[in-house]
């Protein structure tokens, strides 16, 4: 395996991100495990400035929704966007530096957190790094726009349009994160909109980009309907940014905003149905048998559907007090992120033969990786759903009894209801850590010692 220090073209750049992805996933799962351990065994483990739940929670969030996500964005951009619309050749050095900066600033944010714990903003970023992220995101957005405008063929691909939408809202999320805090409402406004633009739109759109590729080319299927794909794109793009406010129903946010959020969340069913029908009908036209990696893609779609259904169902006004301000909100974020990870793993196994010229053998190791990933995210969603609903129910029951803040003995009762689920979260994290380690080993093994096969040259070569 040859990997040049400075990749000369998109082909080599894609290779780089294929290798970085398992590493970032491993880091993210390690931090998630430490975080959950320090929550469950807070009384037993020695705490210090670094190893305490609060700090680890920040790090873990940044590693998952920042670093891992940024790596996947870069992989999707190099392989699916610039290739399909490909007029990026002239701008290759700029693209290379921007993508490097895209992942680099996220990594820098994690590292600098150790030194500037007292200087983090409301979204957990350091102000200077956030500014850098903003610049880099703007650079990538500019390159993507140039790429679209400079193309000669009058066509745009499904994957490319989703990537473009994700980058636009990724940039917007950083603008929002830098906004000034003046009144208490700002806290909820910024965190809500940051979550919905960065996680809901950003992650789900990159996911869509990968899925629209995986459900056609690798299994030799033809997209069922471009109209449904467009409904999915514009529907999610318009609706998703508004959907996080509803979880603060009854809070200090303006009432009209909470109500709009509820109605637009309910409307998510439209693009969701369009996507589901398109996906099912498309994979029916496949001409190649689905391998184990493709079945992971199927599972990611199921996870994505479950997440969105929960997102829609939780919009009912009488359910919101139960699920708002609880772990249920994490279910939605984890659901989107989990779908993206599963689809990216599937994409990685598809890309290895194309980029590295090594065929993938689906042995016991890969079975363990796929099975482990599916179980991890299924358990994670179910467990956090139970925590969210049970604790939300307790808070409301206690509030109706006149003690909404539940201190002392009252909180012991709440904890008796959800404590076991928090312990389970730790073991789920441990499972995830084990699986990501196996995934890393599997990728290294395949890339270094898989059977040699033909490399598929990407369309453009900048050498």
């Amino acid at each position, binding site marked *: 395996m040859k990997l040049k220090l400075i990749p000369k073209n998109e082909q080599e750049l894609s290779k780089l991100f294929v290798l970085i992805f398992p590493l970032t996933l491993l880091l993210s799962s390690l931090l998630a495990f430490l975080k959950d351990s320090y929550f469950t065994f*807070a009384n037993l483990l020695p705490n*210090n*400035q670094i190893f*305490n*739940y*609060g*700090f680890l929670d920040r790090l873990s969030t940044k590693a998952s929704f920042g670093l891992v996500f940024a790596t996947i964005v870069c992989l999707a951009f190099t392989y*699916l966007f610039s290739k399909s619309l490909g007029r990026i050749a002239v701008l290759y050095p700029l693209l290379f530096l921007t993508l490097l900066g895209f992942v680099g600033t996220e990594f820098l944010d994690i590292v600098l957190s150790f030194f500037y714990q*007292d200087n*983090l*903003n409301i979204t957990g970023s350091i102000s200077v790094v956030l500014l850098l992220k903003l610049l880099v995101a703007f650079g990538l957005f500019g390159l993507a*726009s140039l790429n679209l*405008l400079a193309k000669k063929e*009058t*066509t*745009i*691909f*499904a994957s490319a349009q989703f990537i*473009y939408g994700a980058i636009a*809202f990724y940039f*917007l999320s950083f*603008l*929002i994160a830098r*906004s000034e805090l*003046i*009144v*208490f*409402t*700002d*806290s909820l*406004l910024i965190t809500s*909109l940051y979550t919905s633009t960065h996680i809901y739109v950003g992650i789900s759109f990159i996911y869509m980009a990968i899925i*629209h590729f995986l459900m056609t*080319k690798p299994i030799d299927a*033809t*997209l069922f309907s*471009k109209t449904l*794909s*467009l409904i999915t794109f514009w529907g999610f793009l*318009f609706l998703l*940014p508004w959907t996080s406010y509803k979880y*603060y129903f*009854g*809070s*200090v946010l*303006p009432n009209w905003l909470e109500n709009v959020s509820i109605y637009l969340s309910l409307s998510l069913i439209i693009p969701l149905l369009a996507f589901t029908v398109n996906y099912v009908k498309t994979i029916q036209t496949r001409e190649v048998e689905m391998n184990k990696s493709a079945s992971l893609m199927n599972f990611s779609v199921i996870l994505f559907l479950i997440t969105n259904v929960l997102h829609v169902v939780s919009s009912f006004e009488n359910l919101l*007090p139960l699920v708002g*301000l*609880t*772990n249920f*909100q994490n279910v939605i974020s984890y659901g989107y992120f989990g779908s993206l990870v599963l689809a990216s793993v599937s994409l990685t196994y598809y890309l290895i033969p194309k980029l590295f010229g090594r065929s993938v053998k689906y042995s016991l190791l890969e079975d363990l990786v796929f099975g482990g990933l599916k179980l991890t995210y299924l358990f994670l969603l179910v467990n956090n759903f139970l925590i969210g609903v049970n*604790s939300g129910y307790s808070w*409301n029951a206690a*509030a109706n009894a006149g003690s909404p*803040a*539940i*201190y002392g003995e009252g*909180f*012991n009762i709440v904890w008796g209801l959800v404590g076991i689920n*928090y312990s389970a979260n730790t073991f789920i994290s441990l499972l995830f850590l084990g699986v990501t380690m196996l995934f890393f080993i599997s990728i290294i093994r395949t890339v270094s010692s898989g059977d040699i096969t033909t490399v598929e040259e990407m369309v453009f070569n900048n050498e």
Partner: protein
Amino acid sequence: MSELVNKVAEILKAPVDLVQRSAEARAAASGKSVDEVLSSWAGGESVEASAPKEETPVEETPVEETPVEEAPVVETPVEEAPVVETPVEEAPVVETPVEEVPVEEVVQEVVEEVVYLKNESSLAFISGVLSIAVFTFVFAFLTPKNQSISVVESSLNNTISVSADVIKGAEIYSELNCQSCHTQNVRTLIPDTQNGKVLSNKYANKALIKNIGNIRLGPDLSTNSLREPTNNSQWLGRYLTDSSSVNREIPHPNYEFLNDEDLDYLVTYLLSLGESNE
């Protein structure tokens, strides 16, 4: 028939499966058999100049709006004939003898299966995405933000006076990320309002704003100073340094690594919660 398909594919320099599917689509639209269509294509003139060399290896099925006039290219839900020419608009083609179909049209048909042409420019697409982004920023963020500020400004009592020690405590609270588990976010829902006043109508320090919290794992702390035993500084100090000495059941981090001064600031801040909202 496979020989015929191979021959046509060779002439068109297109993949066999694409030619096969295009022929099936053409046959369905024109009412002729697939063999007849293939024969006509095979008998056509040389097409080397217009063969879709670059387009055929395209990786994925592209998607974009096709104008109404372009409606003839439509995917059928039927098993494996994704592209069918709409018979109504194509009536003139049906009347044309199959043998006389121009080779360029055949090539175009093959191309269209993998590349849908669109009429809108990229600029329209970019404008659409940007418009939604700007719309979101203005109406989902700037408008409610300004609305909240104006509510606070019109309030008679719109400031909170907090001591420097409380602010220091608030910063330590934020640094330790206590807001990961504790909210100070009482809602105006009927159950929650019994707990205290809503915090909106006040200007506040940034450190205080950051600590509101979004997810409630532990107790809400907005009325911490109004309750037993959390209104007791000694109890709080003991709980923060060794929580299990007070309550063994609930896991809570031990902040024994905080120096005495910082611990005092933190306790001062916690004791201020509830008072400032009165």
